[in-house]
């Protein structure tokens, strides 16, 4: 079938024009733009037009090069550090216990992903919350916490707290980790494992930075259910030899609560560089 050249050229022109418009649309109607205008309506109703105008539109970014934070969460979570929006649904609500958290961990110095996880670079919900392939630190959500038996996200999030607060004991706000640290002392894990880089036994492998071990480097043959490192640790604490073939580590009879706490403790032992201003210290 011979199609005349002029018709072909004309249809190619139509095709390229339509596709160009589609490309414009995909970029112009970005997800975050809709979220921002929805928020501004809510803000206008709540605090009046004049004060609502103070909110900045466009991509918002917290950039802290010292701790390699590039967080764009505020693009959608516009009221996260503004008191008064506690009753709104996400992403429009204020951060819980805003005053307390902003005092000890000011958002402009810590970003958001430092504690919550997630992909700070991204500006779409799915990508930003980081539950996508090839992003290793997803958002530690309520759902994820419940999946592992915790009650709420803040419990699971303790794994990120301890990455910096590792050398402390009895830190307020970290009940699970505090309990796990006590357990480590009571059960004398150091008898078989080096956990601080120097002292400990050599019957078991050194686990000072076991939190930095990549999931690919764990053996998942003996693990039931989801192939996650968290699951690996949970099942390992319950019965080491089932998950780690040939292991001589005995099962210690921990309760489920203790196992959860110990698992997030060891997963928090990551190689992180903490600048001087960020080193935690006990406030009197």
């Amino acid at each position: 079938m011979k199609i005349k050249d002029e018709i072909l050229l004309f249809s190619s022109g139509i095709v390229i024009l339509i596709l160009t418009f589609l490309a414009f649309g995909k970029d112009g109607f970005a997800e975050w733009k809709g979220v921002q205008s929805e928020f501004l309506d809510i803000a206008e109703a709540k605090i009046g037009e004049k004060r609502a105008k103070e909110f900045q539109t466009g991509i918002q970014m917290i950039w802290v090069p010292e701790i390699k934070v590039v967080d764009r969460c505020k693009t959608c979570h516009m009221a996260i550090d503004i008191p008064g929006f506690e009753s709104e649904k996400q992403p429009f609500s204020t951060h819980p216990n805003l005053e307390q958290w902003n005092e000890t961990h000011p958002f402009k110095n810590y970003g958001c992903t430092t504690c919550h996880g997630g992909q700070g670079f991204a500006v779409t919900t799915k990508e930003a919350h980081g539950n996508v392939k090839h992003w290793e630190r997803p958002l530690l959500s309520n759902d994820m916490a419940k999946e592992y038996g915790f009650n709420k996200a803040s419990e699971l999030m303790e794994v990120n707290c301890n990455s910096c607060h590792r050398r402390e004991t009895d830190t307020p706000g970290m009940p699970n980790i505090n309990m796990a640290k006590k357990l480590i002392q009571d059960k004398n894990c150091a008898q078989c494992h080096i956990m601080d880089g120097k002292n400990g036994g050599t019957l078991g492998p050194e686990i000072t930075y076991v939190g930095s071990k990549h999931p690919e480097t764990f053996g998942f043959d003996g693990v039931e259910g989801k192939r996650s490192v968290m699951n690996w640790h949970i099942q390992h604490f319950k019965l080491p030899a089932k998950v780690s073939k040939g292991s001589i580590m005995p099962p210690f009879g921990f309760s489920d609560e203790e196992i959860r706490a110990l698992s997030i403790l060891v997963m928090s032992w990551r190689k992180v560089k903490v600048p001087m201003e960020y080193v935690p210290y006990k406030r009197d």
Partner: protein
Amino acid sequence: MEEKQNKTTRKDFLKKLTGYTILGGVIGHTWMYVRSTVPNVLYEPLRRFKIGSPDKYTDGITYLAEERLYIIKEKNEYECVSAVCTHLGCTVNVHQLGSSKEITLPDGKKLKQKWEYHCPCHGSKYRGDGTIYTGPAPENLPRFTLSVSPDNQLVVDRNKKVKKDFRLKV
């Protein structure tokens, strides 16, 4: 004859339309490519930023070193003066005058000032209201607008310069 005429004009019309659609695609693509080189986010300190609650400022002049700004508070009025000399960009210092002095400005008005701004680099001197009176600096010290954020903090906006009579009343 007429049919041939119609055919020719239809052909020309199609040609023109084709040209315009392809041109539209070319312009559209060019626009996208050029637009992408203009940044939407900058890895720089923010141009509009918070500087703390109004209550934490004492009466008089406060220097914010990292932001290179002077914040002046008098009772419940606030001003924001840039500390960057308009000559070649050095940071000007505050030269306290000990006691409040009254001077006459070139336009005849009187000004009460407690300090002056002196630049250490090439000797530019500014009065207490930021206006230049000696030295190589070509302009007065810029002033930026101040506002209060919804969470009750002072907000400086470098994008909006203001005149020397601007005061934020809190």
